[in-house]
């Protein structure tokens, strides 16, 4: 909070003194109270990206460098051209802080927000994904409470709006005890025409500005407070800090918006999120290089006596702004009437390049359209935390425990176990597009009806790895998410990210962000994957422990599969088939599940990423696919490849006999080989007839490919050729351990 003097009175604002001076300089006068509120909100970290913007500049060239990218960073969502006249939009966003105090409504309105972002690209939202972070569940009623109601909030909102939640990810770790991470992603599909109809800009003078959807109330106003008097009679305590979502109204907004866009009369579209009407009107006109005149008395309010300040800054949910051609006004309004949606024509655009907002006869805002988006940026300090050296130097204890016991324990760990408890609550099939459904593959695969094309999407990152090394960990996250879509047969097309970090004013926290962004940028440039959007959430701190969360640069990858026959699934298919491990396994146990579950250890050097090797691995995978040689595929991550194999056995209740002789090099230990989380590996099932061809291709691409065993009909996993005794695991028991963890913790 900063104290400033405005019109002789003392006011409290979030902005700094310097920023306030800048506002006055920009205007050449004192701002009005409504203007001050507008600047305060629009120049906040959340809206203006003032700490992160200098760093995120790295990503700016996606539109220029990739011909299929239609919209890149800076838009409400990234959009790519996937051929046949279709455009795909996607974005990911955080709703961490609201969810930490009210998990149900916080998560629900998070879904509501991300849907609006996609909708304002003019396309139909067709899928949701939800990567989540909580404290550990065991013996932690608070985590259980958050987890239960976050999932219910996502389910109730997503299900009601008829958008399937097709995937997600979750990790449980102490650093998220009081600051959970609720990231939500949405994918939209439409024609390229639809997308072109709805730029989030007001390019033309003389168009109507229409507010449509729910009514405007006092929710979500982060008020500028005056020391001597409150803004209205309504005290802070009476204002709910968290908003209540209304998925029913959202569903109608979706249908009404899409129908309106189809008319061709909509010339601009913008959702109302952070900053409310202030953000929507200033960005529409600012980005479009126009101006507008708006009358707040036209806005339909929920409560009597709302001030212009409150109307401009309200963050009431379920509202959209439309810019409509004059000749189409009646047509568009008729559509809103059909859906019984409230609406108001609140103003018109002009070419003044000034945003004028009236409260009846009073001019309450009079700003150059671009002023609010011209926030100052901060160059933040960054410093590598001193504790890291000590953490990284920790060694894996000597292996004295029984390997079978370890594996039974690992597969039941909260971070590895079955996540069915979550996705059973999500309608993941509505829309009749879901081809590879939750739990059936590494990614969610959707068909594009009317074509032989499929999209695949996966989201996640390993927070433990990122904590120990944000650069390697972020690149590892990219390998894993790309690996997930590749495992289902897709080619990675584009990436969006959601950066969840601590306080950027603390150099150690900012260092994490900085390294993660560099990692993303390096990897994506080398692998030719456009970064088409992102979101930054700072200030994720545990207020009790006074520490930041584990750095979590969430990665979402969208991929494309051409042709139904090229879809690959996870479950093993037939006894007698060969098993290959693709990619190199190194002694990389730093930050592994094995360390944390078995030794309660948080250290070691996390796995490293070698882009050249990853590239070669992907190349060989695609050649194997072209040859039709892969019958099942699952990428290797938490818990190592033995866990991967177990997961592949479950569905068809098969077993595997592994012989690891000659599969790993001399100086690597059994546990290092079995539980290593080296990036860029796959387990594939192939026909024995293809054995020689596969090894030949391995030579050609110079990729480490080892036949490690065969599938057997007996449901057990036998591992020979270790330095220790042979292992024999019961698939039934593995499955029981895998399945029971979350239900046991949540269903008391």
């Amino acid at each position, binding site marked *: 909070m900063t104290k400033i003097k405005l019109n002789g009175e003392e006011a409290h604002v979030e902005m700094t003194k310097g920023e306030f001076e800048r506002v006055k300089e920009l205007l050449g006068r004192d701002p009005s109270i409504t203007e001050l509120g507008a600047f305060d909100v629009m120049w906040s970290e959340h809206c203006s990206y003032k700490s992160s913007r200098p760093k995120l500049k790295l990503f700016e060239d996606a539109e220029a460098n990739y011909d299929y990218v239609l919209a890149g960073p800076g838009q409400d969502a990234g959009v790519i051209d996937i051929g046949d006249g279709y455009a795909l939009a996607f974005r990911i966003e955080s709703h961490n802080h609201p969810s930490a105090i009210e998990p149900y409504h916080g998560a629900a309105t998070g879904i509501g927000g991300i849907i609006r972002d996609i909708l304002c690209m003019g396309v139909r939202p067709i899928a949701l994904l939800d990567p989540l972070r909580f404290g550990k569940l065991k013996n932690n009623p608070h985590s259980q409470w958050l987890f239960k109601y976050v999932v219910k909030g996502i389910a109730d909102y997503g299900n009601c709006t008829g958008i399937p939640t097709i995937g997600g990810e979750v990790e449980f770790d102490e650093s998220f005890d009081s600051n959970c991470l609720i990231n939500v992603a949405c994918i939209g599909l439409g024609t390229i025409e639809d997308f072109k109809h709805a730029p989030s800009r007001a390019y033309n003078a003389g168009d109507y500005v229409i507010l449509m959807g729910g009514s405007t109330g006092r929710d979500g106003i982060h008020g500028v407070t005056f020391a001597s008097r409150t803004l209205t009679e309504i005290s802070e305590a009476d204002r709910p800090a968290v908003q209540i979502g209304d998925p029913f109204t959202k569903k109608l907004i979706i249908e009404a918006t899409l129908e309106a866009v189809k008319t061709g009369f909509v010339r601009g579209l913008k959702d109302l999120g952070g900053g409310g009407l202030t953000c929507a009107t200033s960005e529409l006109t600012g980005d479009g290089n126009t101006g507008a005149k708006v009358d707040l008395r036209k806005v339909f309010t929920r409560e009597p006596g709302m001030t212009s300040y409150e109307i401009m800054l309200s963050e009431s949910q379920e509202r959209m702004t439309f810019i409509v051609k004059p000749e189409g006004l009646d047509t568009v309004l008729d559509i809103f009437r059909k859906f019984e949606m409230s609406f108001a024509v609140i103003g018109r655009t002009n070419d003044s390049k000034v945003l004028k907002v009236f409260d009846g006869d009073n001019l309450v805002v009079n700003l150059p359209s671009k002023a609010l988006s011209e926030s100052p940026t901060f160059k933040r300090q960054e410093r590598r935390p001193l504790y890291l050296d000590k953490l990284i130097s920790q060694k894996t204890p000597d292996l004295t425990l029984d390997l079978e016991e370890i594996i039974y324990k690992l597969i039941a760990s909260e971070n590895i176990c079955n996540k069915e408890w979550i996705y059973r609550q999500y309608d993941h099939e509505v829309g009749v597009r879901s081809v590879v459904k939750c739990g059936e593959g590494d990614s969610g695969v959707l*068909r594009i009806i009317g074509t032989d094309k499929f999209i695949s999407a996966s989201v996640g990152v390993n927070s433990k790895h990122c904590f120990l090394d944000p650069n390697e960990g972020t690149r590892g996250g990219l390998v894993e998410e790309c690996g997930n879509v590749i495992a289902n047969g897709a080619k990675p097309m584009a990436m969006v990210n959601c950066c969840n970090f601590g306080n950027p004013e603390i150099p150690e926290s900012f260092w994490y962000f900085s390294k993660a962004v560099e990692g993303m940028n390096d990897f994506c440039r080398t692998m030719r994957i456009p970064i088409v959007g992102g979101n930054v959430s700072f200030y994720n701190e545990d207020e009790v422990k006074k520490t930041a969360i584990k750095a979590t640069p969430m990665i979402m990858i969208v991929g494309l599969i051409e042709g139904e026959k090229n879809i690959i699934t996870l479950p093993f298919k037939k006894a007698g088939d060969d098993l290959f491990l693709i990619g190199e396994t190194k002694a990389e146990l730093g930050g592994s599940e094995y360390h944390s579950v078995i030794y309660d250890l948080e250290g070691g050097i996390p796995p490293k990423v070698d882009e050249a090797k990853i590239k070669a691995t992907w190349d060989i995978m695609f050649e194997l696919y072209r040859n039709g040689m892969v019958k099942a595929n699952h990428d290797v991550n938490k818990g190592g490849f033995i866990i991967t194999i177990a997961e592949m056995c479950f569905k068809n209740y098969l077993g595997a006999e592994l012989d690891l002789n000659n599969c790993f090099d001399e100086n690597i230990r059994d546990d290092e080989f079995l539980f290593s989380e080296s990036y860029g590996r796959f387990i594939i099932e192939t026909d024995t007839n293809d054995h020689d061809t596969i090894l030949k291709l391995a030579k050609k691409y110079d990729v480490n490919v080892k036949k490690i065993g065969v599938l057997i009909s007996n449901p057990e996993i036998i591992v020979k050729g270790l330095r220790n005794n042979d292992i024999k695991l019961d698939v039934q028991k593995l499955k029981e351990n895998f399945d029971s963890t979350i239900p046991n913790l949540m269903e008391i």
Partner: protein
Amino acid sequence: MSIKIAVIQFPGANCDLDTIHVLKDVMHIDVDLIWHNYFKESKYDGVILPGGFSFGDYLRSGIIAAHSPAIDEAKIMVKDGRPVIGICNGCQILAEAQFLPGAFLHNESLKFICKWINLKVENNNTAFSNKMNTGDVLALPIAHAEGRYFNDNVEELEENNQIVFRYSTEKGELTKDSNPNGSLANIAGICNLEQNCIGLMPHPERASEAIITPKRTTHGLLFFESIIEFIKRRIS
């Protein structure tokens, strides 16, 4: 003879387009999607109330939609013997409108459940099951939060042959484990006395194309084919 079907779009319906897709693109049936306030029965041989969350399912699933003018129109169709079909939320609407006996309550687990189940055909005489055999077991998904069927008087339903479908095992056994939501007597679908109005909680429109079904089945088509067959028999 041309057959025309209506799919009603209630505010908050979300399986409307999926149902249209199957009827139109897969089965090539003449079908209209109609906003609930505009629906007039006279043009149609049958009507489907699709799944979703009409009016957000606020208050109680289906209750607000049961007061829609579309329901008055549908009533005329029920009376003169045309097929009136409710799927999932549509089924809840038909129960709330008292076209069907009983009520649908919150699942026993209190959670929304999305999963594939087995459905046993109990009565293959209805407008929604005549292409099946009694005793057939079909694979269909459910996706609902309020699907627990309840009624004071099951015996009467049984006597009148109003139980059309039940949740079962793959082999057709009516066990507790195969009942996903705690429905009375494993009931998943019921009909009126005349057997032209049927409500079903699972989603046949999600089980009509091999590419999106786990075992490459297309059992969902049997339901829609039954509607057409019923209409043909009625007209001829």
